[in-house]
């Protein structure tokens, strides 16, 4: 079964993926800061049993799924799940019993005992927030049929942190903004969108200087707006950002085509023939090659899925591909070899 990130979407020159996350807690258990070890175990067991009892019904909504007892998984296994955004670092590092339910295509995951008792997450490639919300809502309703949520008439869904209160909804769109990044426009953009209750942060790397120009745009406000309005607001802003990015790309190529053409070919050359390479370097070069494909500077019979390649070359996932633990040097050689083989032959335009 293809993973969600292997599917191509219409706006794939800018939009990588969409994600919906609902934070929920159950009325009868204390929240994360006060949850004891025994209660954490009971909580995971109760949710797991409830889902197992009605497995067929849940599989009608999400498809085939698996349950992972995260605390029993190996460090590499956990790290690989974090790199593929199935679980968060927080869940992987937790010392209490935790669990994750994930579907075969990795598009739906339910984290148990993270910051909230349950976090329902649905991801897909492209701009797909509304269908994802529908799916997350269906899972949400399924769970609330037999387990009572902590809900307040005025405040809505009660969450561990007041930053998620109300709808418990975090809608995010992962975007690729090389032109705005190269032109130093990101700081201004981050400032502008923050006034509209939306945040932008780099997915890889630290601070505003994001590695590979990949950013996550999400809603900040979770209460006082309906779920659909929150999503609509986010989509409107992302649409504007897409326009800005496309205009900027056009401008960059018009004003300095030779420079960018050279950069794209050099990056392709390095990744095709390098013998060893670090994650950060590989990410930057992959981002430049993607820019080359999107701007039609280069082409191949089949366009590779860059996001899939980016996830595959992260340390833990690379070791999973290798099937063994490997040190930094060995990983760098394996990463280079993997990329040499993954990049397709170019065709002349």
């Amino acid at each position, binding site marked *: 079964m293809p993973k969600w990130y292997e599917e191509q979407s219409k706006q794939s020159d800018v939009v990588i993926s969409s994600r919906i996350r609902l934070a929920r*807690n159950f*009325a009868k258990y*204390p*929240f*994360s*800061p*006060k949850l004891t070890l025994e209660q954490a175990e009971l909580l995971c067991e109760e949710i797991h049993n409830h889902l197992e009892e009605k497995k067929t019904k849940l599989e009608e909504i999400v498809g085939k799924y698996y349950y992972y007892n995260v605390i029993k998984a190996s460090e590499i296994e956990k790290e690989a799940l974090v790199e593929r955004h199935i679980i968060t670092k*927080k869940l992987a590092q937790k010392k209490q019993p935790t669990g994750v339910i994930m579907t075969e295509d990795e598009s739906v995951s339910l984290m148990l005992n993270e*910051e909230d008792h349950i976090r329902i997450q649905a991801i897909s490639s492209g701009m797909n927030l509304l269908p994802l919300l529908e799916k997350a*809502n269906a899972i*949400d*309703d399924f769970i*609330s*049929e037999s387990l*009572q*949520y*902590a*809900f*307040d*008439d*005025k*405040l*809505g*869904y*009660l969450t*561990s*942190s*007041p*930053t998620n*209160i*109300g*709808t418990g*909804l975090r809608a995010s769109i992962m975007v690729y903004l090389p032109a705005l990044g190269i032109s130093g426009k990101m700081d201004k953009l981050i*400032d502008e969108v923050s006034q509209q*209750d939306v945040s932008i942060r780099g997915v890889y790397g*630290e601070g505003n200087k994001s590695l590979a120009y990949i950013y996550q745009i999400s809603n*900040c*406000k*979770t*209460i*006082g*707006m*309906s*779920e659909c309005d*929150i999503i609509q607001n986010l989509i409107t802003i992302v649409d504007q950002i897409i326009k800005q990015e496309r205009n900027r790309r056009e401008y960059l190529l018009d004003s300095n085509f030779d420079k960018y053409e050279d950069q794209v070919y050099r990056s392709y050359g390095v990744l095709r023939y390098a013998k060893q390479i670090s994650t950060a370097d590989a990410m930057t070069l992959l981002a430049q090659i993607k820019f080359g494909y999107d701007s039609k500077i280069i082409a191949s019979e089949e366009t590779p899925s860059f996001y899939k390649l980016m996830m595959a070359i992260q340390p833990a996932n690379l070791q999973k591909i290798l099937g063994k633990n490997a040190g930094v040097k060995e990983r760098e050689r394996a990463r280079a070899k993997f990329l040499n083989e993954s990049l397709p032959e170019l065709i002349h335009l």
Partner: protein
Amino acid sequence: MLCNRCKKRDAKIYYTEVVNGEMKEQHLCEECAAECTRFHMSSTFVNKNVSVGDILASILGNYRGASNSKANEKADKKADTQGEEEKKDDALRCEHCGMTYEQFLQQGMVGCAKCYEYFNKVLSRSIKSLHGTDVHVGKQPKGYVSWMSKIVNELSEIEKKSILLQEAIEKEEFEEAAKLRDEIRRLKERERNTTKKTGIGKEESNREEINNA
């Protein structure tokens, strides 16, 4: 960008302050921001693994810090009252899970659903400052019956219609009001007949008749 003040270190904080209606914008480094503004970089910010909870705790801390320094500028007496109020806030404790408000400020997370009731006053203020409102308008759990609906459900048919009648009169929708009045009359009539037949609540119906008279 370099810090506007020391012009040596990288500016990491974009600081806007409104004093007497005048807006002042500055790009500052962490050190200068801590020195010359009300913004204090807590150690959590310097730490690379900053969680949303840490940021929230810091914002709330700064929020209180700011109100505290404002209070200092005013008369001593007023500052004392403010200080006392804050002490009172810190002493707040959730009877259900034992979480104190001070612990909440440190972690940025509550201990249980009841914390929102016990810390209602202070939390509602911080939720408003974070989100602009503290009233949920979105989804409800499937089959959830709100407090208001519970009360409405417990009302008798006559009571429900009486409320609607009152509303119609207030809106000056007299045609609707007349309709409702007749319906209420009919319902009362029917009720009276059943009580007469069964003989139960004779006293009550007598009282009602006297009232009607």
